[in-house]
Every structure is written in structure tokens, then in C-alpha cells.
């Protein structure tokens, strides 16, 4: 197997070795993944919701951090591909007893697993794991620290493509805690690669990374100005712990300044959609009327997550 030295994700243009971040993917590979996901989207609607692509393969969900949506959709994706599947909640097992991350990996390797789906609170953890597993194991990044959440970005892009055929004409805004968000980082890369001409990030200055414009986006502190005429607005969850550490004064002021309230729907484009990677804090970053309204595609994102993850798992699995 030849590993492309420039691109740690890819073996050839068609196959993935690991799926660690969006940054190094080509536009054509992203589009291929989306097309494959499209073909898997039908599987969930069939009476027998399984295809035998990964029969006999063992996939391990290795979650060092709590998750419901991502963990569950990966599990469903793997099971619909007929793989054997194991959930390991590391928080309550080995590392509590002082075992190092590397030892945990060695032990799991010894059990002859084929793929690790990893979520970890430290940026770079998935890449670290990918460098330290044996050749026949693939690593899928399910979120590492503030760095990347590439499958979430892929499913968001997949969802956007359902409504807008041409990325090169879109105005897209990401709103909220950009500084701490791995989803925002992966989305910025995805949109750049897909040549979205107008990418905006919106939030209070304390939650916008210093110098974020280097990533090819335009920062806005004023939400009304920032979402004006946008085709897609992606709301990020405001984590509770931020409120207690002087990033913002309080929930009310945040909601007034950055909450997606029904009156703000008039500012975005006529066919504009509102997205959210979940879990949603109603009344903090988005009102219930908007979250549950006809411009919101939040639940479609969740369903699309299964098909997109099926595509990524099947492309990344080693023969």
C-alpha cells in the first residue's frame, strides 16, 4: 500500500487510508464521497436496512469524550454496512486506571480490529493515533479537541448540496463559538475547497480566533450584518462552561446579539436554510420557532449523518 506523502488521508484518489481532517482533501474526492453517500441514502428507507459491504470487519468506537449523536450515527452506519461493532467508553475504563493512550491502542490492536473511530478532547489525538497503529487499521476522526470534526463537516456539506446545487455561488455564515469549535474549523476548510466565494464567521470578539481571516473567511461581530443575504447559516452550540469564564457577559446578552430569532429569518436569503450540528440550546443560540420551523434542516442533518458516515467508512476500510 502506498501512502501519499503529501496527504495523510489518502492512498489513491479513490480510496482513503484514514479520515483525519478535511484540510487535505481534494474537491473531487469530497464530491465523490457525497455521491457515494447519496447512493447509501436509500438504504435507510429499505425494509432490510443493510448492505454487506463490510461483513466480517470489526469497527471500534473509541470515545474519550461524551457523545450521543455522533456515536450513534457511526454505530448505525457501521451496522448498516454489516460490520461487527464495538463501543468503548474510555472515560470509564482503562485510562482511569492509569493506562496510557498507546497501551490502550496496543491492546485493542491485539484484538484484531480493523478500524478505530476516535473522539478525544485533545487536538491532534486522531492523527497521533493514526501514526501509532499498525498498517491494516484505519482511523476515523470523530472529533479531536478544537481541531477537526471532518465527518460532521461532510454531512453538513451533503445537507447543503441537497438544497443548493452550486457551491460556487453561496454565501455561508457560521455563528457562535468559533474559537473552541472543531466543527467550524472543518467547515471553513470544506467551504474553501468547494470554492464557496463568501464564507463568514460571526461571534463576539472573545469567541473569534485572533487572525481568523487567514483561514479565508470574513469575521463579523454584528450578526445582522453578518447573516445578511446568506444562503446558509450554521449556528454553533454555546457551551455552558464558556459562560462562567468571562467570554461573554451572560446568556441574555448573547441571545440578544447572536440568537437566531424569527425576525432574523428576514435577513437571510429567500431560500436560506438554518443549520445546527446539535445538541441545540433552545433560547441560547436559537429560538424554538426557528429550530423547529420550515427553514431549519437540523433533523435532516442527523439523518444525512448516517449515509455520509457509511460512505466514509466504506471508502476508508482496508481490503
Amino acid at each position, binding site marked *: 500500500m502506498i501512502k501519499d506523502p503529501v496527504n*495523510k488521508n489518502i492512498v489513491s484518489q479513490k480510496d482513503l487510508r484514514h479520515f483525519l481532517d478535511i*484540510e487535505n482533501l481534494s474537491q473531487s474526492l469530497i464530491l465523490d464521497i457525497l455521491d457515494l453517500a447519496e447512493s447509501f441514502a436509500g438504504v435507510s428507507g429499505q425494509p432490510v436496512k443493510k448492505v454487506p459491504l463490510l461483513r466480517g470487519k470489526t469497527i471500534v468506537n473509541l470515545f474519550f469524550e461524551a457523545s450521543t449523536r455522533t456515536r450513534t450515527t457511526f454505530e448505525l452506519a457501521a451496522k448498516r454496512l454489516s460490520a461487527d461493532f464495538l463501543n468503548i467508553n474510555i472515560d470509564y475504563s482503562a485510562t482511569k486506571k492509569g493506562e*496510557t*493512550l*498507546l497501551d490502550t491502542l496496543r491492546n485493542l490492536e491485539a484484538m484484531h480490529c480493523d478500524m478505530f473511530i476516535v473522539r*478525544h478532547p*485533545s*487536538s*491532534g*489525538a486522531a*492523527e*497521533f493515533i493514526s501514526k*501509532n497503529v499498525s498498517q491494516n487499521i484505519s482511523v476515523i476522526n470523530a472529533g*479531536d*479537541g*478544537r*481541531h*477537526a470534526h471532518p465527518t460532521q463537516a461532510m454531512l453538513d456539506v451533503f445537507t447543503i448540496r441537497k438544497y443548493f446545487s452550486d457551491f460556487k455561488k453561496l454565501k455561508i455564515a457560521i455563528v457562535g463559538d468559533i474559537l473552541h469549535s*472543531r466543527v467550524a*474549523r472543518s467547515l471553513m476548510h470544506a467551504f474553501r475547497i468547494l470554492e464557496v466565494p463568501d464564507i463568514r464567521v460571526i461571534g463576539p470578539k472573545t469567541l473569534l*480566533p*485572533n*487572525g*481568523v481571516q*487567514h*483561514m479565508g473567511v470574513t469575521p463579523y461581530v454584528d450578526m445582522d450584518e453578518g447573516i445578511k443575504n446568506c444562503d446558509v447559516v450554521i449556528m454553533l452550540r454555546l457551551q455552558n462552561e464558556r459562560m462562567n469564564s468571562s467570554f461573554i457577559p451572560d446568556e441574555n446578552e448573547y441571545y440578544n446579539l447572536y440568537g437566531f430569532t424569527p425576525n432574523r429569518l428576514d435577513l437571510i436569503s429567500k431560500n436560506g436554510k438554518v443549520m445546527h450540528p446539535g445538541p441545540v440550546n433552545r433560547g441560547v443560540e436559537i429560538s424554538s420557532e426557528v429550530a423547529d420551523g420550515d427553514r431549519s434542516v437540523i433533523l435532516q442533518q442527523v439523518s444525512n449523518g448516517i449515509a455520509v458516515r457509511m460512505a466514509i467508512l466504506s471508502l476508508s476500510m482496508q481490503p
Partner: protein
Amino acid sequence: MNDLIIKSANLVNPEGEHSGIHDIYIKEGEIIGIDEDTRKLNSPIIIDAENHYVCPGLIDLSVRFREPGLEKEATIMSESKAAASGGVTTVCYMPDTQPVIDTPAQIKLVEEIFKNVDLCKVNVLAALTKNLDGTRLSSMNELKQAGAKGLTNCLNPIKNSLVLRRAMEYASGQNITVFYQPQNEYLTNEGCVHEGKISNKLGLPGIPSAAESVAVAEAILLMKLTGVKLHLCRISCAESIMLIKQAQDLDLPLTADIAIHQLFFDENSINNFDSNYHVMPPFRSAEDLIKLQEAIANKTVATICSDHQPHNEDAKQAPFSNTQHGISSIEILLPLLMELVDLGLIDINTAISSVTSNPAKILGIDTGIIKKGYPADICIFKKQDWTFEKSKILSAGKNTPFIEKKFTTKVEKTICNGKIIYSSN
């Protein structure tokens, strides 16, 4: 101990009276003459130094040899061998050992181990606050009497500006130098890389340059208030350089140093989460790197140290932010310096004085110069191409981003107190 004659040496001796080609006569550990045998050598060993450079033995202002307490990482024996192979004859020992060096007994213990190892010499910097807790002043007079050459709190924060003021004031009264590593703990927060392009891209928590420059400004103003002898350690950013220059222009006797690796890398080196680039302070922007190199060239910062921090393999085997910071670098200090000379960034006298006469002045020790009556601490080196291979690293710590680097300068012999402590063959 044999007497020595170093013949036909090309002296690089920035503060000395002699430079160019000379013979050096050494008896009983002392330089007794340049080009003249003043005290009749006793069957001396003759070292032919033709086509070799000869400079004073290097003085390294910051090393961690991990002993006592962390011998699983490194020992004074293992690291002294590494130091000797890098031309280093005197090291400044940081007090953040286990236990902390905050009593005369701890100083004696370290000095005793160095004496038994019998390679390079040690100057201990003792703790500025008891147990480095940032709150209670250490017994500065006792520590000075026991031989401490200065006081430092290393990277441990001082509780507040008042404690820092009192510590400086008291140290000033005892006429002892404070070695202060400027880093505001609140602005540093949980950061592990420079706050900038790379922290944004990799999502690693960033440390703004202001975390350092705010602390530099505070230290300079308190220096003015207290009259302390202040040395700022491990400067990493352009803003700090600007503040240091301003203070020097006001005739404050402020000195500072830069770690050698800071003159080679910027934040972009961390691109693929390689934990060998995890250092504290972090590698800053490309613009900062240029300013640091300029500060060495124009002598705003006149001292360079290795900031040697050996680790065992496990310490670097984790996701980036969970790894220990620091680079093992003492054995390539001279080759790295000479690379800066080769690159035309600094001249050879600036390079050599930054690790010999300048740190000697800061420590107040009689070495760092090749001169009659001074200890025979000498480094002999030559131009030779070689590759820094991991398997040949003498330090117990193999944690360095310089592995496989090609060098053009090689240390041939290191002499400390007239004893040959390293010979390349």
C-alpha cells in the same frame, strides 16, 4: 592531571587580548600563558590544533539534568557527557528538581554529584520562592552563602505583583541576580502553542505574545522600582525585544537570553502536531523569529542558552497538548550557533561571546575567556560535515527536532579545568 599545550590554535576569544593563531599553555588546570611557558610545564600533552578553532568552554545558562528526583529521564552523569561533547564546560542548574533546590543542602547535594561525575562545572540557580510556590520568599542570603549564583522561579508563576516586588527588593538587598522567566500565567491559560496562524488551524490552545511581553514590562518596571539585578530568561517574541531595548536605552542594566531552538523555528514547524516542537515559551511567528535573530546580532540580547530539557520517550508520546515541553539540545549547542554564523545572521565573535564571556559576566564567574591566570576551560572545534543521528545522541533525552540535521561544525575536544573531558575520537 597532565599539563597541556594547545599548539597553533585559531583563537576565537571575544573578550580576551589574544585572537588569531596562538599556542596555549596549561598547568594544573590553569592557563599559565599564551605563546609563553611561564611556569615550566611538566611533560605536557601536546594538542595539535592546526586548522581548528579554539574558544573558551561554553557556559550554558539553563540546563535540566533531572537529578535529583527524575533520574528515569536523565542523570547528571548522562547529561554531563552530552554537555562535554557539545563543548560545554559550565552549566547553570535550574532549581525545579524534586525536591526543589531551595535549601543550602540541596545546593550542596547537586554540587557534590557534579564533583563526583567530574566532567563539567555547575552553578546552581536556587529557588526564588520556597518550593517555587510563588508566595514565600526563599532564604536568599543562606542560598547565596551556599553558592547559589542567582535565583529563579523557573516557569512557576509568582502569585502576584506584590510578591514579585518583594522578591526583587529582597534579592536586591542581598546583591543577588534574579533570573526571571516572563510568562503571565493568566494570559498563558491552558495554551501550548503560539496564538496565531497555527493555533487557529490546528485548534490547539494558543498563548499570545502578550503573555510574555506583559510580564516583561512588569518586570522592567519593578526592576526600576527595586534596583534588582535582573536577567530575563528565554525571550521568544518581538514585543519583548522592543521593551528590553527601551529599558537598555534608559541605562537599566537589564540582560536577557534566548534559547537556541528559538533562533531556528517558528510556529509553522508544528504543522503536523509533532510533539518535538512542543516548547515553552512556544515557537512564535515568522516575524518574531527574524526579530530574535536581529536581537542577537545587534546584542540587545547577548546570551544564548541550550534550555536543555531531556525527556524519556513516553513524555512525547501523546497528543500534542498532553506531551511534556522541551528539547534535548546541549550537545549541539555549538554546531547550531555556528550554523547561524554560516547563514550570515551573526558573526563568529557574537556567536561565541553569547555562550562564553557574556553568560560569565551575568553569573559573575571567572571563566568564559582564554587568558593567563584563568581556568583552562576550552573548546576545540573544526569545520567538518556530519549528521546528527538519533542512535548517537549521548543525552538520555532523544527529544529533539534536529535529528538527521546536517551540521558543518564539530567539537573535537573539550577541556575543563585543564582536564580533557571530551575527545571526538
